[in-house]
C-alpha cells in the first residue's frame, strides 16, 4: 500500500480528523455545530472537486444530489421507518443512479452549455419535488422529535449525526485521493486539459465523465440526509438552493481545484470566514458583503487557490500538498 506512505494522502485526512475531534475533546456542542457546518462544506466541495477539479466540468447542479439524497433518506426514515444507516445508503445510491441517467445525456455538452444545463436541472428538481405529494410537496416533511429517542435521545442523535458526517467526509477524501492518483483520474485530468486530445490518446471520455459524475453525486446525498435529519424538517427551497451550489464552487476554487487538500482548505476557510463574521458584532450586519469582498480579493490574487499558491511559492511543499 504505497499510498499509506504518501504525506499528501494523510495530510487532508489528519486535518479533518483533528478538526473533527476538537468538539469531542472539548465536549462542546457549540463547537460541534461549528465543525458540523465546516464538514458539510468540505464534503460538498470535495465531492464536487471530482467533477469540477479533476474533469474540468463546472456544475451548478451539485446541490441536486444533496437535495435528492436528503429527500430519499428523509422519506425512508419518516414514512417507512428505516434506520438512519440504511437510509444513508439509499440517500447515496439514488442520486448516483440519477447522475448516471443525467450524465449520459448532459455530459455530451461542454463548457458553458453544460453549466447552463446543470442550472436547469436544479430548477427542474426543485419544481418536481415541490409538486410531488409523496415527498410532501411544498410543505416538505418533518420528523417527529420522538425519532431521536431511537438513537438515545436528541443530544445523542446530534452527536451520532456528527460522527457519521465526520466518517463520510473522510471517506470522500480517501476516494478523492484514489481517483486523483489512479489511471482513471489521469484520464479525467486529460479530459480537463483537452477532451479531444484525450480521446485521441485512448481515454473513453463519455464513460469516464459519467463515472466521475456518479462518484461525485453519491456523497452529497448522504451529507444531505445527515443535514436534514438534524434539522428535522426538509423543504424544497432549502434542499435545492442554487446559492449553495455557487458557494460550493467558490470553496473549491478558493482552496485549489483539482487537488485533494484544496477543497478541505477552501470549504473550511469559507465556512469559518462566514461563521466568524456572522457572530462578530462589528461585521454581523454586513457579513455577506465583507465575506464577498474578502473572497473576491483572495481569489483575484491567488487564482490557483491556496494549495496552488503554496505549491508554486514553496518548493518544499510540492510533495506534501496534493
Amino acid at each position, binding site marked *: 500500500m504505497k499510498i499509506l506512505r504518501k504525506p499528501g494522502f494523510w495530510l487532508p485526512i489528519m486535518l479533518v480528523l483533528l478538526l473533527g475531534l476538537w468538539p469531542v475533546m472539548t465536549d*462542546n*456542542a*457549540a463547537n*460541534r*455545530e*461549528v465543525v*458540523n*457546518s465546516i464538514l458539510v462544506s468540505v464534503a460538498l466541495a470535495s465531492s464536487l472537486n471530482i467533477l469540477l477539479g479533476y474533469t474540468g466540468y*463546472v456544475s451548478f447542479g451539485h446541490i441536486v444530489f444533496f437535495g435528492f439524497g436528503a429527500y430519499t433518506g428523509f422519506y425512508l426514515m419518516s414514512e417507512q421507518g428505516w434506520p438512519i444507516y440504511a437510509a444513508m445508503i439509499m440517500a447515496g445510491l439514488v442520486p448516483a443512479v440519477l447522475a448516471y441517467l443525467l450524465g449520459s445525456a448532459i455530459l455530451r455538452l461542454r463548457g458553458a452549455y453544460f453549466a447552463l444545463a446543470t442550472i436547469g436541472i436544479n430548477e427542474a428538481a426543485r*419544481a418536481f419535488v*415541490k*409538486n410531488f405529494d409523496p415527498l410532501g*410537496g*411544498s*410543505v*416538505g416533511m*418533518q*420528523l*417527529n*422529535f*420522538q425519532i431521536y429517542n431511537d438513537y438515545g435521545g*436528541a*443530544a445523542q442523535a*446530534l452527536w451520532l449525526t456528527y460522527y457519521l458526517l465526520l466518517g463520510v467526509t473522510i471517506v470522500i477524501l480517501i476516494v478523492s485521493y484514489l481517483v486523483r492518483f489512479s489511471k482513471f483520474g489521469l484520464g479525467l485530468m486529460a479530459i480537463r486539459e483537452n477532451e479531444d486530445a484525450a480521446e485521441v490518446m485512448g481515454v473513453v471520455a463519455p464513460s469516464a465523465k459519467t463515472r466521475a459524475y456518479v462518484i461525485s453525486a453519491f456523497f452529497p446525498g448522504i451529507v444531505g440526509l445527515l443535514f436534514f435529519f*438534524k*434539522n*428535522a*424538517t426538509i*423543504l424544497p*427551497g*432549502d434542499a435545492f*438552493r442554487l*446559492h*449553495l451550489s*455557487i*458557494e460550493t*464552487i*467558490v470553496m473549491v*476554487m478558493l482552496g485549489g481545484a483539482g487537488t485533494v487538500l484544496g477543497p478541505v482548505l477552501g470549504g473550511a476557510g469559507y465556512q469559518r470566514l462566514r*461563521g466568524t463574521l*456572522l*457572530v462578530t458584532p462589528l461585521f*454581523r*450586519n*454586513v*457579513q*455577506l*458583503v465583507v*465575506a*464577498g*469582498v474578502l*473572497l*473576491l480579493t483572495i*481569489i*483575484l490574487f491567488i*487564482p490557483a487557490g491556496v494549495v496552488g499558491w503554496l505549491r508554486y511559492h514553496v518548493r518544499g511543499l510540492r510533495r506534501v500538498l496534493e
Partner: protein
Amino acid sequence: MKKLLWKLFIVLALTSIIITACAQTPTQTEAPAEEPIEEPMEEGEQAEEMEEAEVPAGEDMTATTLTLGYTASLTGRLNVSSGRQDNGLQLYIQDLQDAGGFEVGNEVVTFEPLFYDDESTNERVQELYTRLATEDNADFLISPYSSGLTGAAAVIAEQYGKVMITTGAASDSTYKLGYTGVYQAYTPASRYLAGAVDHLKALDPDLTQVAFVHENDQFSTDVVTAAKDYAESLGYEVVLFEGYDSETTDFGPFINKIEAAAPQALLGGGHFQDGSTFARQLYEKGVDLAYVALLVAPPEPDFAELGEAAFGIVGPSQWEPLAEFTPESAAEAGLEWFGPTGDEFVERYVAAYDEEPSYHSAGGYVAGLILQKAIMDAGSYDPEAVKDALDAMDILTFYGRIKFDTSAESHGLQIGHSMIYIQWQRPSGELEKEVVWPPEGATAETIYPLP
C-alpha cells in the same frame, strides 16, 4: 485566454453572492435602545402598563438580567417581516428596561436581547441556536421568522430544554412533532383564511365559486389547503386551486387561468413580495372579481404603495392598530389583562421607529410579554416552572387572547388567538386599513363587490 475566462467566471460568481447580499440589506433593524421616546411616560403610567414592572431594587432585592436569544433575518427574502418582528421584540425589551423590570421573588428581572442574522435560510439556524443555548447561555429563546426556520430552531430548543416562544411561525406542523417547550404566539396557519371564507359567506350567501392561487411554500400551502377544505365544507365550488413559485414575478399565466375559471372570489397569495406583485397585476389586467383576500402582504403598511391596486384587497392579520382589546374587554370575557393597550404600543412603536407597526411587530412585542407573564406566574425562571405557567396561561393582551394547546398531539399550538381581516379603503380620500371582520371588531363596512 482560459485563465481570463476562469477569472471572469469567479468574479461573476462572487458578484452574484454580493449582489444577493446587498439586494435586501436590513432597513428596520435598529434597536430603539439609544433613541429617546419622544413623549416619555409618567412613572405611574408605566406601572399600570407593565403590571408590577416598576419595582425599585431595594436592599434585599437583586437585579437579574435574563438573555433572550434568537436569530433574525437581517438579510435575505424574509428581511422586511423579520425586521419588523425584531423591532417589536426589541421595543418590548427596551420598554421593560425603562420600566425597571419585573419582580420574581426577591429579584428584579429584566431581559436583554442577543441575536444573529440567519440570512433567511436554515443553513445556519441550528448552529446559531446551539451557540445561543450553550456558549451564549441564553435563558430563553425566541423563534426566527417563518415556519421553516422555526422548525430547525425548535429541535435545538427542545434538545437543550430551553423554552421557546415562536412568533412569525404559523404552520401547524411544527407543534405536532412532540415538542414540550415550544409555544406559538400566532394563530395557526390552518385558521388563517377560515375567517375570510366566513366573511364571504356573510357578505354574499349566493356566491358559490371561489379560486385559490397561492405561493407554493410551506406556510401558504398549509393555509390554503385548510381554507379550501373549509370552503368546500360550506358548499363552495373551488374552480381553481393553483400554486405559484416563491420567486414568481409574472403572474400573467395564473391570471389567465383565473379569468378562464371565472371565479367570483379569489383567495391566496403568500408573502409580501409576491402578494404585492400579484395584487398589482390583478389590478392592471382588470380581472373581474368581487372579493380578493391575500395573505401577509395587505396588512403591511407598505402595501398602500400599490395605490389603486391595493384598494378593496382584504388581508388576514394577526393584529391591527385598530383592534380594540382593552382591560375592560378582558374583564367582560373573564380573562386576565396583561401588558400595554394597543394605543400605547402603537405610540411607542411610532416614536421608536417612525412608522406604523404591522402585525409582525406586534408579534415580536407579544412574544416578550408572554414570556414575562409566564415567569411572573411561575415565580421563577426555571424552564420547567415557566413551561407549567405557559401551559396554564389564558390571558388577554393588546394583541388578543393567548392560550396554548396542552394536549400531547399539539402541545404549544395557539388556540386562544383569532385572526382579524382588514380591507384597504378610502374613508377620507387616502388609502387606509379598516377592520371588516369579525363584525364585533369591524371599523367599517366591507366594500363589496369590488369596483
